């Protein structure tokens, strides 16, 4: 079943019917081919969206880690600063330094220590908020596109099966048509032989 056979004026009723059946199968095969092409395009589009979403998830992971690590680094820097001021405070207390200066250093040490602690403790939740949750959202999107791509792939497979089936049905009709023609030819020959 590779081509539509045009109806012939001399064809018998069975032949005409066979030609119509073949035309129908041919149309169905063409329709299935179009469906398969559409499904293939959908598969590729969804796969591309899946890949894009996975790349976005990777970017979000990187961004989250960058923000979290920045807070950790700020926290570490504040700790160092606080340690310096605290040393001044301790030395001042030990050797009877200026009370005002000690108080000022103590204040700076406290502020920096608190800032460092806050920054350090916020690093992990921020990383999760900015990075992990966003990445998880993109991963979910990627999963959705993966499912759609899989669905499209199955549709393409089904369309291929439909094309094969239409081909086989067309072949059967052609076989039938051939046998009818053989019978007619045989009859004609017999008639000629008896004349």
């Amino acid at each position, binding site marked *: *079943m*590779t081509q539509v*056979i*045009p109806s*012939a004026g*001399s*064809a*018998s009723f069975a*032949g005409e019917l*066979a*030609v119509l059946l073949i035309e129908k199968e041919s149309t169905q095969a063409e329709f299935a081919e179009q469906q*398969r092409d559409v499904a*293939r395009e959908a*598969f*590729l589009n969804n*796969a*591309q969206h*899946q*890949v894009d979403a*996975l*790349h976005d998830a*990777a970017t979000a*992971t*990187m961004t989250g*880690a960058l923000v*979290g*690590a920045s*807070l*950790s*680094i700020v*926290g*570490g*820097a*504040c*700790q*160092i600063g*606080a*340690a*310096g001021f605290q*040393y001044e405070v*301790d*030395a001042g207390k*030990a050797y009877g330094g200026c009370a005002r200066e000690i108080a000022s250093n103590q204040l700076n040490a406290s502020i920096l220590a608190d800032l*460092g602690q806050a920054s350090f403790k916020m690093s992990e939740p921020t990383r999760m908020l900015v990075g992990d949750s966003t990445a998880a959202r993109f991963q979910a999107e990627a999963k959705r596109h*993966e499912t759609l*791509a899989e669905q499209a792939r199955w549709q393409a*497979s089904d369309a*291929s099966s439909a094309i094969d089936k239409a*081909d086989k049905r067309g072949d059967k009709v*052609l076989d039938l*048509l*051939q046998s009818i*023609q053989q019978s*007619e*030819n045989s009859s*004609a*020959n017999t008639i*000629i*032989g008896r*004349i």
Partner: protein
Amino acid sequence: MSGTISSAHVSAWASVSPASERSTSPMSGACALLAVLVQAQCSSQASAKGEIELGFARLDELKQQLADSIRQAEEAADDSGFFGFLGDIFGSDIAQIAGAVASIAATIATGGAAAPLLLLAISEALQVAAKVGAELGLDPKICMAIAVAAVAVGFCSGAGAGQAAGEVADVARGVSLGAKVTQGAATIAGGSLHVVSAHYRAKQLDHQADAVGHRAEDEATNLDLDEAFSRLQRALCAEQRALATASEIIQDNSKTNTTLSNRI
């Protein structure tokens, strides 16, 4: 089968053949049409074969790209794990140990007034011991006991007050400062190493995404290959059918001619 198909094909053939050939008999016209059909199927076969060869070449290429992506993802995962491990050591373990040393030094610097800080240091040390012990395969019950002790000691700790004078106290203050600076530096190093680790982790995810893309292309190429195989199969079947039909037409006509000759 010289009836419908042959006459149909003759009319189709006549529409495309030169005028001089229109006068040929239906038999030769049908056979010529079938020959054209066979030629068409041959070209269709050649096209399908070409597509199959291209498809296989594309599959090989995609396999190579997929393997590269997977290998690069594995390398990135190794790097990410290594730098993450270093980041954990600096940002967590070394920082905690430095914090504990700073607390002990502060206790010495205060001449015992900062005993609560010592308790805090012991608490930190016990926490580290519980963690490291678990990693080294120590009995979980012992690790749990150490961790509970760390919490208990931590509850007993508080803030230190006054400062002692003297050489030992000065050294202790210096050690405390150094330990705190080390703690901060370790935290910074840990953060930086975690950034590097995250960079490799992102690269790993990117390569994994590329691998997914290559797999999808592989699937699409397989679909195209299946389609090309189907076309090749159809072309072969059609060619066989056309040849069989031509042979039957010739047989039928020769039989008819023989019958007619016998009758004459």
